[in-house]
C-alpha cells in the first residue's frame, strides 16, 4: 500500500518526464507501424503469387525477429550513430514479420469464389485487389498490426540503452539509482506506463477496426 502511494506521488511529480517518455515511445510506435505496415503489406501483395518469393520474405523477416533485440539495436550504431536512428531501424525490422505474415494469410484466406465473381464481373486485377482482396483481408492484417504494436511497445524500452529515449529511461534511471529513494518507483513507472500505453494503443486499434471493417465481415 505504501508503495502504491509512493509510486503515485513519484509519477505525479514527474509529469513532464512522463509526458516526454510517453510521447517518445508513441512516436516509435506510430512511425514504425506506419512504415513497417506499408512495407510489409506492399511486400505481401507483391509476393503473393510467387511461392518462393513469399516464403523467402517470410523467412528473412522471421530471422529479424529471431535476432536478440540488443544486437539489433546496436548493430547499426557504426552506421547511423546513437539515438533515434538505430532504435527505429531495429523496431522497424522487428515489426515486419507479424504484419507480413498476416497480410499473406489474410489474402490467401479469401474465398476463391468471391475473387472469381469479381473477375467474372469484369474487374481488372488492380481493382480486385483494392476493392475486394484488401478489404476482406484487412481484419487479419489489422490483427498482425496489433501484434507488432504490442511487440514495439515492449521492445522500445530498450531504446534507452542506445540513447533513444522512450519510457525505458525510467527503468534505466531506476536501475542506476538502486537502492536509493524512488529508484524502485521509477522502474515500476517505466514498466507500468508501457503496459498502459499498450492498452491505449490496443484500444485505438480496436476503434480503428470498428471504423474500417464493414459490418458484414466483422
Amino acid at each position: 500500500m505504501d508503495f502504491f502511494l509512493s509510486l503515485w506521488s513519484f509519477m505525479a511529480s514527474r509529469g513532464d518526464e512522463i509526458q516526454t517518455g510517453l510521447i517518445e515511445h508513441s512516436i516509435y510506435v506510430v512511425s514504425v507501424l506506419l512504415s513497417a505496415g506499408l512495407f510489409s503489406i506492399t511486400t505481401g501483395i507483391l509476393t503473393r503469387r510467387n511461392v518462393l518469393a513469399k516464403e523467402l520474405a517470410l523467412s528473412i523477416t522471421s530471422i529479424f525477429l529471431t535476432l536478440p533485440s540488443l544486437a539489433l539495436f546496436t548493430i547499426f550504431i557504426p552506421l547511423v550513430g546513437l539515438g533515434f536512428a538505430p532504435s527505429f531501424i531495429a523496431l522497424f525490422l522487428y515489426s515486419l514479420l507479424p504484419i507480413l505474415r498476416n497480410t499473406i494469410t489474410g489474402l490467401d484466406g479469401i474465398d476463391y469464389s468471391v475473387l472469381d465473381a469479381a473477375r467474372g464481373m469484369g474487374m481488372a486485377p488492380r481493382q480486385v485487389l483494392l476493392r475486394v482482396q484488401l478489404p476482406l483481408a484487412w481484419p487479419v492484417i489489422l490483427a498482425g498490426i496489433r501484434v507488432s504494436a504490442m511487440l514495439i511497445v515492449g521492445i522500445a524500452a530498450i531504446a534507452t540503452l542506445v540513447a533513444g529515449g522512450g519510457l525505458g529511461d525510467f527503468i534505466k534511471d531506476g536501475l542506476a539509482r538502486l537502492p536509493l529513494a524512488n529508484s524502485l518507483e521509477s522502474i515500476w513507472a517505466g514498466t507500468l506506463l508501457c503496459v498502459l500505453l499498450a492498452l491505449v494503443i490496443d484500444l485505438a486499434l480496436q476503434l480503428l477496426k470498428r471504423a474500417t471493417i464493414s459490418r458484414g465481415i466483422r
Partner: protein
Amino acid sequence: MTVIGPPIAQRQTLAERLDLIVTPIFAVILGIVGGAVWLYSDIDDTTRAILAPEKLYTQLIETIILGFASSVLVILVAIPIGIAVTRRGLPRLKNFLVDTLGLAQALPAYGLIVLFFSWLGTGMFTVIVALATFSLLPVLRNTIVGLEQVDQAVIEAGRGMGYTKRQVLFQIELPLAVPVIIAGIRTAIVINIGMAALAFLVGGGGLGETINSGLKLDRNPAILIGAVLVAILALIFDFITAVAQRYLKPKGM
C-alpha cells in the same frame, strides 16, 4: 484416395526447408561482417581488451546457460499449466488466460529483468527467473491452442475404446499437439537467448557485457562484434530447434 492437396503440403515443407537454409546463410553473413570488422577496422588496445577471447568465451557460455535454463524452466512450468487449464471444467480460466496473454506481450522484458533484480538481487538466477516469466506466454498459449485444436472425434474415439483420461492426454492429445507446442517453445528459446543479452544489466554476465562495454567506451568494433556474436548464437539455437521441430513432428500429420 488422395492426401490433403499438394499446395498446402508443399508450402509447409518449402517453408521448413527455407528456414533451414536461410538461417545458416544469415548466420554466415553475420559472421563475415563480424570477421570483416575484426580485420579491417581500427582495433586499439581498449577494444582488444573488451574482445579478449577468454572474456568472450565466458560470456558465450553464460548466455547459453541463461537461454537454456530459462527455456527449460518455462517448459516445466508452462506446459503443465497449459494442460491443467484445458481440462474440462476450467473454460473460464482458460479464456481469461488466453485473452490476457495477448496483451502481456507488451510487457517490457527490460523492465521485468530489472524488477526481478530488485527482488532477487544480482546474478544469473535472477535473469533466469525473469526470462522464464517473460517467455512463459508463448509456450503457455501454444500449449493451450495446441491441445484445443486436437480433433474432438479422435479424443471421443479414444475414450470410447477404453483409454483412461490420462492415456488420452499422453497418447492422443499431447502427441497431436506437439507441433504447435514446439513452435511455442522455439519462440521462447529465441526470446530467451535474445533477452539473455540484457543480463549484463543486472550482473548476469553474457555477451551483452561486450556490447555494453563497447557503448560505454565508444568502441564501435566492440559493439558490432558483440552484437554479431549474440545474433549468431540466437540463430544457431533457432536452427537447432527448427531441426528438432521437424523430427519431432508425428508421422501421418
